[in-house]
């Protein structure tokens, strides 16, 4: 594996907190890993597990879901729902052989720019250590034609 592997993290950030935390990290000129590709959602409870799978399938090395701390969700308990989904998704992804570090859930309020930045740094390091996921190519084979790989037994 090349030393220059730069992990791609797709981030689903809640509009009311974590997205603002990312904004704050920017305006406060906090330096952190440039590996996050943020997508703004209205609440962490909006993140359908299909989004996470689609991101992994389409080339992300990891996915970060970030929302308001429990008790602070704009929609009361969207983040509790997100936590339930995440917990069940994590268990399912384990069966897929996908390492826990690749899909993470974070609580970061609008004032916690440093928390978000630190989490992105940490996750980037985690993913660097794990190496690229490259699902389409490494797991499904070129073109998704993994069935053509005749494996020796």
């Amino acid at each position: 594996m090349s030393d220059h592997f730069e992990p791609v993290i797709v981030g689903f950030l809640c509009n009311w907190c974590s997205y603002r935390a990312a904004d704050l990290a920017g305006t406060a000129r906090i330096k952190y890993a440039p590996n996050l590709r943020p997508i703004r959602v209205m609440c962490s409870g909006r993140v359908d597990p299909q989004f996470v799978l689609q991101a992994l399938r389409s080339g992300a090395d990891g996915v970060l879901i970030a929302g308001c701390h429990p008790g602070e969700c704009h929609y009361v308990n969207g983040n509790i729902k997100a936590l339930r989904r995440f917990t069940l998704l994590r268990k399912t992804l384990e069966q897929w052989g996908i390492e826990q570090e690749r899909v993470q859930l974070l609580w970061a309020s609008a004032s916690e720019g440093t928390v978000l930045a630190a989490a992105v740094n940490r996750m980037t390091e985690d993913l660097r250590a794990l190496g690229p996921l490259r699902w389409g190519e490494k797991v499904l084979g070129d073109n998704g034609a993994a069935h053509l790989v005749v494996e020796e037994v």
Partner: protein
Amino acid sequence: MTENGKPKLAMYWASSCGGCEISVLNIHENILTVDEVFDIAFFPCIADFKIKDVEAYPDGYIDICLFNGAIRNSENEEMAQLLRQKSKVLVAFGSCAYEGCIPALSNLTTKKATFEKVYFNNPTIDNPDRILPQHSTEVAEGELTLPHFYHTVKSLDQVVEVDYFIPGCPPEPPQIWAVLQVVIGALTAGQPLPPAGSIIGAGTMALCDECTREKKEKTIKRFFRPYEIQPNPDQCLLEQGIICMGIATRSGCGALCPSVGIGCRGCYGPPDGVEDQGAKMLSAIASVLDVGHESMDEDVLEELIQEAVDTIADPAGTFYRFSMAHSILKRVKNGKGAA
């Protein structure tokens, strides 16, 4: 159409159990109408045909081919290609051809692990010389070959173009008959066929829509495996903590399983608008799970939710029982998670 002017019907099984054929025969006396209208061009389950016969047909000779079974090996794929070429209308018939079904559950593990289980570590197998089927074997008479066993099971539409999909494991006979009537109408009376690529012989909504169990608000604290609970006969099974895939499954079977107290397994695949049935189910399950409250400490919350989630023994195998080949990720990374 040929000599006697009758349209040609074919049915072929790839990686499947044969239940789809039985389901076709279960349209009872209507099978006589099928026989009246169609000429059987290829149907190994009920009549003796050879591949050579099919190869000799001109392209598009078969008017409608019901193809059941998943693509597990190279022979399945070759037959799919041959039948595609020889058929005007190719139907992915049943869950295996449509979305992988039970054969594609092996996408949750590896080919290597599958072979280990089938040929070595199996209580009914004694194989001290560790003999495995080989693609090619030399014998005195020459070379013998077996098809290549693929790493990943695929659905029919992942190897050839498919005109229609009929879901179900197996499709329900009344639904099959309804579809055949449409086809017969089109062939004999020029009635229109559904648009290409449609899912036919099923509904569009979630199965709950046709389930007669009483539905209230779902507040589930934990899940039960079937042997752990005696279900109340009238109430929604999911509300009782029994995993029922009805909320993430296409209607069409008439809610057969819930009507006899068994949670829907999901054999009709996802309803309209859902790409990944398992992820949809996962999402729905998490939404009805009434554990954890926003007033709780973060650690307590995590622990409680983890405990509740752990009452689901095998989420991947449960939520993707029929749809692994059509799922977004299609197979596991290295099979380590699924022993």
